[in-house]
């Protein structure tokens, strides 16, 4: 495994934040325990799949601090696609969504999901400052604004 595998498994903004936390922990521990701190932290305080990836990466073994700083910088610079949806997503939903996004836009893209039940259905998508509203709420609002005069007349009678 290498850095690309880690990037592939970072799906959401929360994943990225958690990875950055772990990287910070590794960097700070490298100055502890007479040089053994990094190994101890890698074996005990970091998620296993990340620890395995790092241990198997020759670039990490050669210069761990530079490697970790580069990793942190890369992850912090990932593009984000923000989506507001009307339901609580399951793990499978997130997995599928992330795979689709990484396939269509690129591996270095994170998804940020916001739960908003008032959207009724569909999603609001924000990517690189562009805003698109594909929700049922918008469709109903548009329909209502077209029909509201007639509706009010009916209600009045």
């Amino acid at each position, binding site marked *: 495994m290498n850095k690309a595998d880690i990037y592939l498994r970072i799906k959401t903004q929360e994943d990225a934040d958690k990875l950055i936390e772990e990287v910070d922990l590794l960097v700070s521990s490298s100055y502890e325990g007479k040089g053994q701190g990094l190994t101890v932290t890698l074996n005990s305080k970091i998620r296993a799949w990340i620890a395995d990836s790092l241990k198997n990466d020759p670039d990490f073994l050669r210069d761990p601090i530079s490697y970790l700083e580069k990793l942190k910088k890369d992850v912090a610079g990932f593009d984000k696609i923000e989506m507001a949806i009307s339901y609580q997503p399951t793990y499978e939903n997130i997995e599928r969504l992330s795979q689709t996004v990484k396939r269509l836009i690129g591996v270095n893209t994170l998804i940020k999901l916001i739960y908003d039940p008032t959207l009724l259905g569909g999603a609001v998508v*924000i990517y*690189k*400052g562009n805003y698109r509203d594909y929700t049922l709420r918008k469709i109903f609002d548009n329909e209502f604004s077209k029909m509201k005069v007639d509706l009010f007349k009916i209600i009045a009678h």
Partner: protein
Amino acid sequence: MKDFNYYLETIGEIGFVEEVVYAIAYVSGLPNAHPDEVVIFETGEIGEVISLSQDNVEILLLSRNPTRVGTKVVRTGELFQIPISDEMLGRLIDPLGNPIDGAKQFKNVSKAPIDMQPHGIIGRESIKKPFETGVTIVDLVIPLGKGQRELVIGDRKTGKTQFLLDCLLSQAAKGSICIYAVIGQRLLDIRGRHEYLIQKKVMDKCIMVASSSSDPAGLVYLTPYVAMSIAEHFRDKGMDVLLILDDMTSHARYYREISLLAKRFPGRSSYPGDIFYIHAKLIERAGNFKKGSITCLPVAESIMGDLTGYIQTNLMAMTDGHIFFDIELFNQGKRPSIHPGLSVTRVGHQAQTPLQQDLSQVLSNFLVKYSEMQQFMHFGAEAGENVKRVLQLGEKIDAFFNQLPDQIIPINANILLAAGLWAGLWNEVSVTDIKRETEQVILAYQTEEAYRSQIDSLINSSNIFDQLVTNIKQNNKIIIDKLNRSK
């Protein structure tokens, strides 16, 4: 302007406030934002894009409420525009065009951009019409013309504002539209001046555009641009407009603050490199045009009488002269404390009649001579007859130039009195009595129709000052009869 959701739906771009540094917000997103574009925050506040970088859009905040990190922002695709209406006459407004005098909102408004290119040479005309300030020393020695840009410069508390208000009263009485931009001053002063104009019954010809020192720096920065746009609105209707920008040194300070916060490279005295450009571009919008005119009186504050400050010299370079209020003259009790020797008018003389030009020349020469004689007397030299005569006349001229606040003196009354002084009508009168007697003549001129016509025709029939003086010597009753001297 529509609301946040409208622009979010129609333009389809969104940004998020990442950082707020006093008057500047750094916003991520908004991929197609462009400089000077107006943005709306989800809280309903507005801002203006001032610069773009790879990651962020820099936005000048125009809101009085604090902006929080994470707030959503949309762009509007529009440049900054303000509502302009004829209903603004008589009103006190803020730089966003909202009334702040507690009266009703404006109904029939049109929109105008505040940052316009100055008018080209084709639409302009040379200064031809005189601009009467009602202040004797200015009208006679440093005359102004309609469309002139004249800097008013002086230390704090030297009577600059009173002079500006006198100009405003004089011009409002003549039917000009007067726009008074108060830039970043105390709320108490703004209210005081507003009440003063109401009390003088000229507010119906005036618009006050005011920003106080407690307003956001962005709003203060916009104040003179908004005032200029309103002036252009009335100019385009063929009207003569007086625009007072009080004061441009404060404006420069606020712009410096904004620029330094926006991490612009500081130049001389920490002002940004484009400070000359932004002021010149603004003041260049005034002038005399084929249709209407904008007479602009920007104000600059000097420190300890120093005329060589950065902003002060910049403003001098972009105006058609300056009127200097001297703190020393003020301390000597001269009102207005205008220093005729250090004041300049570059185009005002061309709007004068030949008689006025001649009088102006005579007075200027005399004032130089009088100043030299005064310096000469400091050495304790024994004065000859000629020197004594110059000094005596000089003292009387000083008394003649001394003017009470709010006292507007018509130009022809001033010319008559100057000719009377030269004709020796007040040779035997003490300096203290001169003021009282000249006021009697002015009162007669202002109140008696027949007398006014008589004086006007006398002045119109004289081409040079000597001729007028001779006429008055021959017929001194024209003045003497109006004086209540004990026989």
